[in-house]
Each structure stands twice: as structure tokens, then as C-alpha cells.
């Protein structure tokens, strides 16, 4: 058990990665990215999922969860802010897309930045007052925010009320790829592209000043403040970036599912995404994606347990946390001298 909790595949891979030549790295990158783009072309009974087609599972939940988990990871994993209302940004993105697509003649590509903008704005509105608080108080406020957005959506007739919005148009064709309801593959590729961009952006930020500031805040906020890190500013940025990613995910989701109801955006989804982040390994982008893929894929694959699968899933979360509390692929630990107790 002790070995299990300490073994870190990421460190092994990281060592290997450091030793390889740039050419090898380039090839590996291209190969891995190509592999992911080719995934929906595979029709293999081993990875196929019963009930829903593998292609639609790839879009939702797999790549969708990954995108949201990477966004939430900036907030929870990198800066250590416990956000229990992440679904609010997803909902705001989805509703922004749906409203603009229904009421105006703007197309998907024009609304996507708008949806992200609205989600970022929500991040500022929530973040400015809330981020002055810490820990559990911050957690309950974000949880409340998530619920408020949902209940407001239920009670506001102008945005469809409890029935939600229907017949939302999809994105226009992209180089001959039609975005139809029946075929989830273009949406998968679209989201995968977004995900790659977000990963690239977040990795860039992590290696630069904001990343160091986030880490400092996560490890000890007071010390970070004393060291001259403007904590509120960087926490707010983490919030805004996380929100923008959630908003983008929501817009894509609304354009694929074509009809949205407030009941899609419950606390359960927030918890689910948070579980992906913690399960995979907080603060490590690859771990987070692994967590999202596993937690998205297993319930679909385990349909033979049909109704009981969430029970096993809950058990799995408890067992997993007890064996590896830092997640499957924890972030690389800097050398720490720990006092022995």
C-alpha cells in the first residue's frame, strides 16, 4: 500500500522526457496528437461502449470532461482554490451560445469568444468579492454560485425557464465537415483542438510568472503575499481562465446537444469534474486528463452493471483516495525536507 501511494509514473516519464532529444520529443508529440485525432475512427469491441456509441462517448463525457477538468485544474490544482461551482461557467457558456444562436444571426465561431467572455465576466463578478475569503468559506460561496445560476435559469422565463432552450442551431460546416446531430465526430475533433490549445496555453502560463505565483499561493498564501505576489490578482486570473475554459466547453456542448435545460447543470457535474481533477492528480495536467478519461469512460463501459454503476463508482472514489490520496498521476514534487513524525 505504501509503495502504491508513493509510486509516481509521471516522474519516470518526466525523467525519460528530459533525456530525449528534441527530435524524438517532436515525433512523440506528433504521434500522440495524431493518435488522439484518430480515436473516433477506431471500431474495436474492446474499447467500444455498450448502449451509446464509442464516438459519442468520446465527445461526451471524455473530451468534454477533459476540457473542463483542465480548466478547473487551473483553479483547484494550480492555485489551490476549492471551487465547487464550476458548472456555473459551463452553464453560462451554454446559455450564452444558445441565446445568441437563437436570437441573432451570429454563427458558432463568432459566439464562442462571446460565451468565453461572459463566463470570464461571471468569474470577475464572483471572484472579486469571493476570493477575499479562503478555504471552506470560498468553497461554500462557489457552491452557492453554481446553484444560484441554475435556479435563476429555472425561474427566468426569458431564457426558457425550467423547460430550457430547444432547437439550438449547430456550428456551420468547417472545410467540408458538417456538424450534424447524428455524427459526434466533428465535435470531438473541435473539442480536442480546443483542449490542445488550452493545454498549450496553460503549460506556457505554468512555466512563467503566473504559474509560479499560483504555486506560491497554493503552498502558502500568506508567505506568497509577503514575498510580493499580488495574490488577489493571480487568484482572480486563475478564476477567469478557468471560467473561460468552462464557458467554451459549455458553448460547444450546447451546439452539439441542441437543447439545454437547467437540470443539466447541477452540483453533481461540478463534483464530477472536481473528482476528475483530484482523482487524476491535482496540479498535473496529464493526470487530470487521465482522471477525466477514466471517470468519464468507466461508467459508460461498465453499463453491464447498468443501474448500479454509480454505486461502484462511489466506492471506487473512496478506495482510490485511501490508496493514493494525491491522485493517479500527482504533480512532480519539488524536493521537500519533511519532518518525521
Amino acid at each position: 500500500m505504501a509503495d502504491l501511494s508513493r509510486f509516481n509514473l509521471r516522474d519516470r516519464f518526466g525523467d525519460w522526457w528530459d533525456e530525449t532529444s528534441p527530435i524524438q520529443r517532436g515525433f512523440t508529440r506528433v504521434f500522440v496528437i495524431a493518435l488522439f485525432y484518430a480515436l473516433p475512427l477506431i471500431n474495436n469491441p474492446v474499447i467500444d461502449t455498450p448502449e451509446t456509441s464509442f464516438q459519442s462517448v468520446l465527445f461526451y463525457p471524455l473530451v468534454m470532461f477533459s476540457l473542463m477538468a483542465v480548466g478547473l485544474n487551473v483553479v483547484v490544482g494550480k492555485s489551490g482554490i476549492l471551487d465547487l461551482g464550476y458548472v456555473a461557467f459551463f452553464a453560462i457558456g451554454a446559455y450564452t451560445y444558445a441565446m445568441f444562436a437563437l436570437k441573432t444571426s451570429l454563427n458558432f465561431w463568432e459566439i464562442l469568444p462571446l460565451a468565453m467572455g461572459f463566463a470570464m465576466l461571471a468569474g470577475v463578478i464572483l471572484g472579486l468579492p469571493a476570493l477575499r475569503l479562503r478555504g471552506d468559506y470560498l468553497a461554500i460561496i462557489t457552491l452557492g454560485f453554481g446553484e444560484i445560476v441554475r435556479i435563476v435559469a429555472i425561474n427566468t422565463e426569458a431564457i426558457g425557464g425550467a423547460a430550457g432552450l430547444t432547437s439550438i442551431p449547430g456550428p456551420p460546416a468547417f472545410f467540408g465537415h458538417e456538424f450534424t446531430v447524428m455524427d459526434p465526430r466533428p465535435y470531438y475533433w473541435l473539442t480536442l483542438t480546443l483542449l490542445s490549445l488550452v493545454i498549450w496555453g496553460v503549460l506556457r502560463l505554468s512555466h512563467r510568472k503566473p504559474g509560479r505565483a499560483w504555486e506560491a499561493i497554493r503552498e502558502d498564501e500568506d508567505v506568497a503575499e509577503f514575498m510580493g505576489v499580488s495574490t488577489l490578482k493571480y487568484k482572480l486570473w486563475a478564476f477567469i481562465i478557468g471560467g473561460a475554459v468552462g464557458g467554451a466547453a459549455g458553448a460547444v456542448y450546447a451546439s452539439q446537444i441542441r437543447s439545454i435545460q437547467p437540470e443539466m447543470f447541477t452540483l453533481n457535474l461540478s463534483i464530477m469534474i472536481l473528482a476528475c481533477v483530484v482523482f487524476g492528480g491535482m496540479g498535473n495536467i496529464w493526470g487530470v486528463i487521465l482522471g477525466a478519461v477514466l471517470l468519464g469512460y468507466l461508467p459508460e463501459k461498465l453499463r453491464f452493471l447498468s443501474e448500479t454503476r454509480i454505486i461502484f463508482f462511489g466506492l471506487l472514489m473512496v478506495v482510490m483516495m485511501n490508496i493514493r490520496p494525491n491522485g493517479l498521476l500527482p504533480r512532480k514534487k519539488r524536493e521537500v525536507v519533511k519532518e518525521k513524525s
Partner: protein
Amino acid sequence: MDFSIVVSDFASLTLDGIVVGAIYALVALGYTLVYGVLRLINFAHSEIFMMGTMTAVFVTSILGFTGYEDPLPLWRFFLVFALIVIASSVVSGGTAVILEIVAYRRLRNMGASRLSSLISAIGASFFLTETFRLLTDSRNLDFPRMISKEPLFQFSSAYVTQDKLLVLAGAALLFYGLNRIINHTRLGLGIRAVSQDERTSVLMGVNVNRVISFTFLIGGVLAGAGSAFYMVFYEVTKSNVGFLIGISAFTAAVLGGIGNIRGALIGSFVLGLFQQYTAAVLGYNWRDVVTFVVLVLVLLVKPTGLFGEALQKARV
């Protein structure tokens, strides 16, 4: 927005607010006690409450009540109800203790991050909700009416009924008992010591694991008893009943300053009353929104809740 309702129905809304507040308080105490000793939000606490409501329904069905009988004579009702309270408390308390051992203890001994414990608790919560959702087929379960809900007397606009009096009296009794345990027993001393400083209390010879187990037990028993009162008052439950009650109770605990027992009590009553008044003005739909907005405002003006100590810096 019709504020005249609040004025005309003031007594009735106030009575209901106090009754609802008493039920919230029984659940909120569990959150606040556990937070006191562990500095953790026990996210599965709402499921412990849900288990209590299920047990209450189960006991009545074993006893053969269908809900169509005439109200029982008072002495028989008290016997049956005492049985229900005891059964719910035992099941909820037991679940809470097992939950602590399964979901928290190992993580605590490893010194894992708070988030890991949170996820572990959420997993346990999923497990319990889903198990009962399948067992009950997602149906509403009715609690048979065994006590007359005809008003005993009317005070202004408030109809005082037996079930409301029962909830208030029972809750008062439990609060008194809790006060005795916390302030006048060795066990309570242990709980207070661990809440103040876990390390020092270990040095002083407090068995922390035992104290934590007892804290979960007390929280679970209170939630179990609360669930029995809830069933008499609302008469219906479902596998997801814990969520809404849990959110409200948790809000109440934070409102009063989480970790603070008296704060949780007062916060619950304040929240219960406030929910009734705003629901009357704005409509039931907006109740939870208003609750959260007020909570946010309170936390911004006084982040430690109404009666909390200066926690928010120390307990990150």
C-alpha cells in the same frame, strides 16, 4: 413583491420558520461538530440524514402503519415515535461512525490533503444516495400520519399543531442533552480540547481517534433524530432528500460561524425564519437563491459568520 403577506401571516411564518430552523439545527450541529474537531466539511453528512429518514419509513412499515389509520392515542404515539427516533438515531449514528473509519481515518493518518478527504466523502455520499435510489426505485416514500395535524389552537395567524410542538420540544431536549455532553462530561472536554488544538490535546493524553469517532456518533445521532422529526413534519422522503436539507443546514452552520455550536443553533433559526419570510414574498422558487445571496453578503461583511472566531486565516 407583496410584502403585506409577511405582515398578515407573520405569526404563521414565524412558527414554521422556527420549526424548520429546529430541524436544520439538528443537522447543522453535525457539520459544525465535525468541523470543530477535523477542520473538514463532512460532505456525506446529508446522506446520514437521508439514512435516518429511510429508517423512519422502514420502521413504520414494519410496525404495519399504512397511513390510513386514525391518529393514535397520544401515549401510544409517543411509544411508536420514541422507537422511530431511536432506530433512526442508531442507524444514522452508526453510519456516521463507519463513514469516519472508511472515508476519513486512513487519509487523516496519512496526512493527506483536505481535498482528498473531500473527494473520499463525496464518493461515500454518491454510494449511499445511489444505493437508496435503487432500493426505493427513485420513488417518494410516504411517512404515515400517526398524529393529528388539526390545530390545537390558533395564535394570530399561526395554527399550532401537535407535530410542530413535538418537533420543538424534541429539538429542545436534544440541544439540552448536547449541552450536557459537551460542557459537563469528560468526552465533551475531549471534543473541546481537540477542537482547540489537536496536537496539544494528544500530549495531554486525549485519545484523538476515539474523540473523533464520538463526534461523528453525536453528529449522526442528532441528524438521525432530526430526520425523525423531519418525517413527522413533512411526511415524505426520497433518496436525494439529504441534498437540500444538507445545503440549508450547512449554510446555517456557516452563517453562525462553522465550528461554533451556539452559532450553528442561532444560524439555523435565523435561516429558517429568513427562508419562510422570503419564500412568502418572492415565491418558493427563489428561496434558495435568496439564502445563498444572504450567505455571501454575510461572509463578505463578516467572513467568520455571525458568531465565529477569526477562523478564515488560520484554517485554510
